[in-house]
């Protein structure tokens, strides 16, 4: 679309980019945004409570639910023996279905620790929880149920899928290079730990089911529930108005949705189920652990001649989700000889899944530290090494970049941080008991656009309403859609309503993979443009309008008016008179095949200063900045929050986040937020992030790119590199905790 026809590029009212506060912010901070478990539209809900299995693999040998059934307030107790019959897992019987059936309590098999083994529904939450502990289940563990976790190498098997990324002769390049790095990094299991637990509230009206749930998309759980219940999915009215964090862990729906719908049908009353904080660790997905070997080969000037990044990721025995930690390495640095590989190690663990920036978030913890080690070996500045290896085209497939401002980000970040004052030799600065050092890393994240639609309506009062089967998982989707609609129609932000989270409304892909704003937003703009055409036609065809007989192609929309030449009419006046029921339009975005001819990514540079306690090995971040490029920015406030939130998560990935697998039980040790550590406020000092000015006209009609995952990418590597620069200890086994730093400090002390 030409810029002079693109209302977002024109930005007449200046709403695009404006740091508008979240529209729903007040509801959230005042506790009045109704999340799924709190929806009061249908009072009188009974409370469900799930019981998780306590073996990693095997079967249920015996069940006694009599005590639970006799407990006060109990309405229903189900195990696989008496739960309603459901379609087999994976059943996808309806045409165009986006998700298979997800039955629960359908057989005696236990496939992972924590798998739902029973459901109790009672009049109160407390009664259900108390009765759940009276459910007696005897398990018979499979003799072979051994969780191979210490030896990922032994369990690893090839997956294929990286053939296009093999270039030249890496082995030869590596063997002949004067400078090489060959090291292995490991990253642990991580859990999403969303603030809002997974929760669902369901009720039936005749043969129609209403399901409020906490999910990153609307259509996928709607389709899954339709398949699971064996009913036409159009009878499933799925609602997801507010979601308290998703991070990939709410791409799927879980037992809370399936079982609340089934129990509501059985009991003929609303039923709601929330996972407890403890249950979330096993009953949902997690980020797999990885073992990553990175090898770099370079000439004496630092020009890379070979890059190899090989990842082993664990996955559940019954699933094939893996952490593709090497994937971004295809696109980041130039080198003629390349090897990318991924292997799976099957474990008797819960099913893994996507977690914020799957791949990059942990992959960059390896590659970007390997680059730091190479820079040190060559005596080069780490920023210069990256700039030297900047490719002109995608180094794997040769496609041109849609935009590629990585070097700008690195240079601007270096200048703002004061990087030129850096001392490259470790253990150079002592501040009391702290060794102080700095580190940097690049950031890259793939950019995506998915098909989406939007419906838009203007009322006789001039209120513009956009409706989409879209979600806002806490990122600001409501707000940026309002900015797009207001700017497109030339109306004040206050006259726009955004209604999301209804499965009946125009389909959108939901929130995930940083594609939400681009996909939903492009459709919303298109809907707005189509509504403008209808309003223009309405005005010029209406004898009572001052615009009557004008050229609709010349219509402009500003300040709440439609304007042709020197004639103007308020939109509300026009609609009230000429179409008092309002005017509707729809819009859509379909990814342009031309977009696939370009390599599309977002970029950034992280710069970090840490202190390392010389006595204890404790690491604390002292200051950190990130400079990013993500196309046009719709809202500098919500976008910056995504970046800083990502960077904080990156700090956590470097220093804090880990769940330990206890192979004796096939379970994770940490099951609450006291044991599973994410950064606390006191861990984050002097953090800042901003965007460089750019527009990506290839990516989508808005010229934007996704920002939800970019901030985490590379952030932890900058921390790790700073730890080394501070104290001289390279820890390649994340997170960088006290015992690992201390061992290094002791070794250096001799």
């Amino acid at each position: 679309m030409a810029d002079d026809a693109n209302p977002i590029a024109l930005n007449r009212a200046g709403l695009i980019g404006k740091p508008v506060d979240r529209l729903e912010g007040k509801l959230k901070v005042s506790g009045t945004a109704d999340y799924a478990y709190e929806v009061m539209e249908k009072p009188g809900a009974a409370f469900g409570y799930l019981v998780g299995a306590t073996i990693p693999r095997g079967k249920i040998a015996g069940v006694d639910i009599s005590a639970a059934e006799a407990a006060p307030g109990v309405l229903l107790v189900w195990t696989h023996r008496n739960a309603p019959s459901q379609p087999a897992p994976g059943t996808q019987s309806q045409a165009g279905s986006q998700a298979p059936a997800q039955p629960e309590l359908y057989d005696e098999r236990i496939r992972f620790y924590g798998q739902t083994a029973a459901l109790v529904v009672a009049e109160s939450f407390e009664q259900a929880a108390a009765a759940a502990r009276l459910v007696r289940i005897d398990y018979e563990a499979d003799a072979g149920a051994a969780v191979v976790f210490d030896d990922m190498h032994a369990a690893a098997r090839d997956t294929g899928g990286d053939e296009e990324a093999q270039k030249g002769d890496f082995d030869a390049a590596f063997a002949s290079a004067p400078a090489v790095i060959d090291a292995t990094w490991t990253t642990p299991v991580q859990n999403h730990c969303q603030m809002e637990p997974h929760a669902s509230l369901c009720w039936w009206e005749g043969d129609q089911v209403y399901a409020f749930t906490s999910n990153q998309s609307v259509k996928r759980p709607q389709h899954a529930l339709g398949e699971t219940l064996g009913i036409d999915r159009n009878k499933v009215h799925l609602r997801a108005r507010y979601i308290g964090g998703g991070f990939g862990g709410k791409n799927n729906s879980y037992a809370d949705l399936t079982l609340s719908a089934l129990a509501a049908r059985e009991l003929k009353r609303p039923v709601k189920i929330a996972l407890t904080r403890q249950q979330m660790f096993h009953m949902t997905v997690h980020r797999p652990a990885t073992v990553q070997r990175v090898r770099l080969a370079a000439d004496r000037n630092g020009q890379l001649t070979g890059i190899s990044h090989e990842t082993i990721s664990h996955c559940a025995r019954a699933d094939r989700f893996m952490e593709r930690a090497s994937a971004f390495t295809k696109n980041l640095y130039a080198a003629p000889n390349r090897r990318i590989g991924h292997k799976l190690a099957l474990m008797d663990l819960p099913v893994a899944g996507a977690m914020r920036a799957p791949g990059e978030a942990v992959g960059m913890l390896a590659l970007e530290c390997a680059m730091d080690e190479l820079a040190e070996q060559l005596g080069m500045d780490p920023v210069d090494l990256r700039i030297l290896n900047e490719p002109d085209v995608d180094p794997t497939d040769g496609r041109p970049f849609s935009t590629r401002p990585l070097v700008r980000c690195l240079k601007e970040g270096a200048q703002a941080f004061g990087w030129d004052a850096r001392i490259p030799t470790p253990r150079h600065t002592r501040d009391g008991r702290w060794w102080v050092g700095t580190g940097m890393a690049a950031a890259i994240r793939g950019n995506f656009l998915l098909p989406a639609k939007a419906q838009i309506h203007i009322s006789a009062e001039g209120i513009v309403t956009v409706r989409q089967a879209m979600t806002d998982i806490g990122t600001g989707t409501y707000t940026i859609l309002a900015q797009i609609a207001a700017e497109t129609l030339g109306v004040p932000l206050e006259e726009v309503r955004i209604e999301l989270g209804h499965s009946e409304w125009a389909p959108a892909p939901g929130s995930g993979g940083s594609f939400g704003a681009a996909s939903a937003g492009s459709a919303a703009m298109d809907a707005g443009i189509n509504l403008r055409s209808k309003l223009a036609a309405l005005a010029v065809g209406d004898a009572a309008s001052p615009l009557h007989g004008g050229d609709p192609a010349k219509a402009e929309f500003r300040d709440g008016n439609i304007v042709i030449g020197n004639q103007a009419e308020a939109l509300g006046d026009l609609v009230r008179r000429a179409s008092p029921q309002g005017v509707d339009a729809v819009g859509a975005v379909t990814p342009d095949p031309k977009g696939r001819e370009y390599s599309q990514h977002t970029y950034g540079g992280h710069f970090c200063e840490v202190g390392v306690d010389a006595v204890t090995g404790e690491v604390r971040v002292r200051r950190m900045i990130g400079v990013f490029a993500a196309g046009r920015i719709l809202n500098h406030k919500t976008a910056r929050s995504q970046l800083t939130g990502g960077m904080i998560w990156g700090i956590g990935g470097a220093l804090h986040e880990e769940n330990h697998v206890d192979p004796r039980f096939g379970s994770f040790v940490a099951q609450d937020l006291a044991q599973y550590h994410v950064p606390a406020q006191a861990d984050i000092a002097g953090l800042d992030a901003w965007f460089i000015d750019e527009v990506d006209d290839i990516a989508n009609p808005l010229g934007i790119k996704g920002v939800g995952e970019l901030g985490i990418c590379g952030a932890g590597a900058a921390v790790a590199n700073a730890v080394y620069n501070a104290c001289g200890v390279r820890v390649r086994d994340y997170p960088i905790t006290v015992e690992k730093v201390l061992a290094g400090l002791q070794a250096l002390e001799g």
Partner: protein
Amino acid sequence: MRAFTYERAGDAAGAARAAARPGAKLIAGGTNLIDLMKLEIETPTHLVDVSRLPLAGIEPTPDGGLRIGAMATNTALAVHPQVRARYPVVAQAVLAGASGQLRNKATVGGNLLQRTRCGYFYDPAKPCNKREPGAGCAALEGFNRMHAILGASEACIATHPSDMAVGMTAVGGRVEPVDGEGRTRALPLSELHRLPGDTPQVETALAPGELITAVVLDPPPAGRQLYRKVRDRASYAFGLASVAVAGGQAALGAVAHRPWRATTAEAALAGGASPDEAAAAELAPAQGRGGNDFKIPLTRRLLAAALAGENA
């Protein structure tokens, strides 16, 4: 959570009487007990709420010590002028623990009696001798990074999680429990918590129902005071190791089933040993279980640095 009955205590002796009944439990701030009840690790059938008893005062004793009412909140303790001026190690220790919200609610008595944060203790699906005597200890061969290196047993390697108690232990003093007859006794702080031995479920020397009414700190020892805590993040994390120093006295935290008075190091220092030597002597009997081996050098370094006065 199991159903329970509830009463609000009218006086300390009455509370002790009510709490001595089988299945009864005292509750004050509830910051630990309620979590444990939700997980059914604690299953009291009756709660005796002592939070409104008039036991929150903090005042000097005639001999130069400080009497701290058991119902004083952790926050009130940390900000009290007497504590800040004369017992900075206690103030620092309190502020190193939990979060502002928890400290506002948690009491001094409850802080002393909080239970371990061993992950296996908190997971009812795993064996734990503390929860279920005789069941076995999952931590012995499990994930024991946070666990005890001093005074542990084959039955239990859990640690006491309090920071406040470590600061108080370095200073020394006594607790004053009252029983159902209204009789108050003086129990030295160093004797309040027990080592696990074969009965890790018995954590203190208190008789059933006995209610701590006050902590009476000894007069502050001459010399500097400091508290240092090593933890995985800058706030809101239980310690990997901590040290409290009050003059020539020292205590360690997060290394044993109780706050650990470093008497060996104190004696060594008094005998002319260097801080390094004193710390090494204190840690000489330490024993790791794999995941927590690092805590031995960590604690030794931390103690040596604290004894040497390094707290920049």
